[in-house]
């Protein structure tokens, strides 16, 4: 049912054929007014209107999207509610607790607490985003060195409290989904460009 309208160039430019509409002066004399009425009456414009709507009915080119059942595809760089990703191999959280997202957040809505765990690894104990303040600018995802916080495509949010959307456990990929290979890599801000391996060159050391 997905349908894309062909793109029409509606930009105003030198090449476009804009011209002033030729509007006749409005008649003042009674006889001229009468002639105008007769001309408009028998011009057949009413039937043009009837034909246009009937043609659309016969073509039956319905543009309705039956929303809860059908959805428009959203772009890969769409910035909806955040997600926290896990490492593919070990299942650890990718977040290393560097705090860059907290620092760069221009609406100051990210808050995190960290500690050093028993493996001397920095562990994030609390991570929350105040969606009442978040402007979905995407800086947190862009700045993240580990591709740990990304923007997801979950734009249908209904809850009694906005805080419910961004509890850390909800944002984090569940372990069973990770094992099932359901964690999608983020192709948006800061992500590795496809085919970037080929463009990597060895750092020239010996001159």
């Amino acid at each position, binding site marked *: 049912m997905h349908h894309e309208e062909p793109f029409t160039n509606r930009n105003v430019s030198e090449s476009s054929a804009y011209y002033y509409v030729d509007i006749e002066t409005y008649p003042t004399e009674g006889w001229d007014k009468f002639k105008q009425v007769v001309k408009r009456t028998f011009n057949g414009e009413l039937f043009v209107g*009837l034909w*246009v709507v*009937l043609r*659309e009915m016969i073509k039956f080119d319905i543009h*309705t999207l039956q929303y809860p059942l059908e959805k428009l595809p959203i772009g890969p760089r769409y910035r909806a509610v955040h997600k926290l990703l896990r490492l593919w191999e070990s299942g650890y959280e990718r977040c290393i607790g560097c705090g860059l997202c907290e620092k760069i957040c221009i609406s100051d809505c990210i808050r995190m607490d960290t500690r050093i765990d028993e493996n001397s690894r920095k562990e994030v104990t609390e991570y929350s985003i105040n969606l009442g303040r978040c402007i979905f600018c995407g800086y947190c995802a862009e700045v993240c060195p580990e591709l740990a916080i990304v923007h997801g495509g979950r734009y249908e949010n209904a809850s009694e409290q906005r805080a419910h959307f961004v509890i850390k456990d909800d944002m984090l990929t569940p372990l069973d989904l990770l094992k099932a290979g359901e964690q999608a890599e983020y192709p948006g801000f800061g992500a590795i460009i496809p085919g970037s391996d080929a463009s990597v060159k060895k750092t020239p050391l010996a001159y």
Partner: protein
Amino acid sequence: MDVAFIIETIVKIVVILLIFSALAGLGTYFERKVLAFMQRRLGPMHVGPFGLLQVAADGIKLFTKEDIIPQNVVKPIFKIAPVITAATAFMASAAIPFWPQFTVFGYTVHPIVADINVGILYVLGVMAIGLYGPLLGGMASANKWSLISAARSAAIFISYEVISGLSLLAPLMMVGSLSLIDINNYQAGGIGNWIVWSQPVAFILFWIAAFAETGRTPFHLVANDHEIIDGFGTEYSGMRWGLFFIGEYANMFFISFVIAIIFLGGFGDGTIAGAIQLLLKVAFFFFFFLWTRAAWPDVRPDQLMWLCWKVLMPIAVINIVITGIVMMF
């Protein structure tokens, strides 16, 4: 008057009431669907298959809604106005033959409540009384938009009564009878005998007047949403508002029957094929009401009055004169 006649009449009345109340509901469904398709939408889809039960859902909603009587309205008039609209619409149907006569179990049924010899006069007269629905409802509503709507309805309905009356005069002169069955039988010879061929001007004029009298879109000034909200219906809620709606849609069906019978041959010679043709004609006229709503913009009230008194009425009078001259010689 024997008992059988009274029972038959009551049965006919009940059947017409039930069928056309249901058709008024279905009419809203068709209107929403047709308008939707013409605007590349789907229309109601969720209640029942293809949204067919939307009619039932709307009916339940209208019946169970609170009947709000605002504080400053003139209560008895406010309450009776929707009844006038619905009642006059159905009363007008009494003289309309909906179907040729047929025989069931040896009993001949005439599908017309009363074949009176002033049929079309009665239909037009009672439809004209329907003016009091919007007029009284609007004036009693204590609402400025309703009041404007009431004034407009009085102006439009009375003006276009003139057009419908004068335009019908010419075909009636030819037929020589006011009974719709006589008018129908006059054209029983087939397509060539249809009055529309001999009276095309009257046909167009009556058709235009039908739009004004049912308050449909090119002349939808009585309840023009973007100017005066819902006009006389602004203060109404629940089933009282629903009665206005049933009246409007029943009127659309009845006026479609009248146009089809007077100008397009009605049910012809009275066979089943003719009867089905009549229903098809009515369906076309009903569809045209919806079609124009999708295609045409509304005109201004002054343009409507101008069209009525300066264009249509002279044409109607000239049409009568020419018809008379042709009939004399």
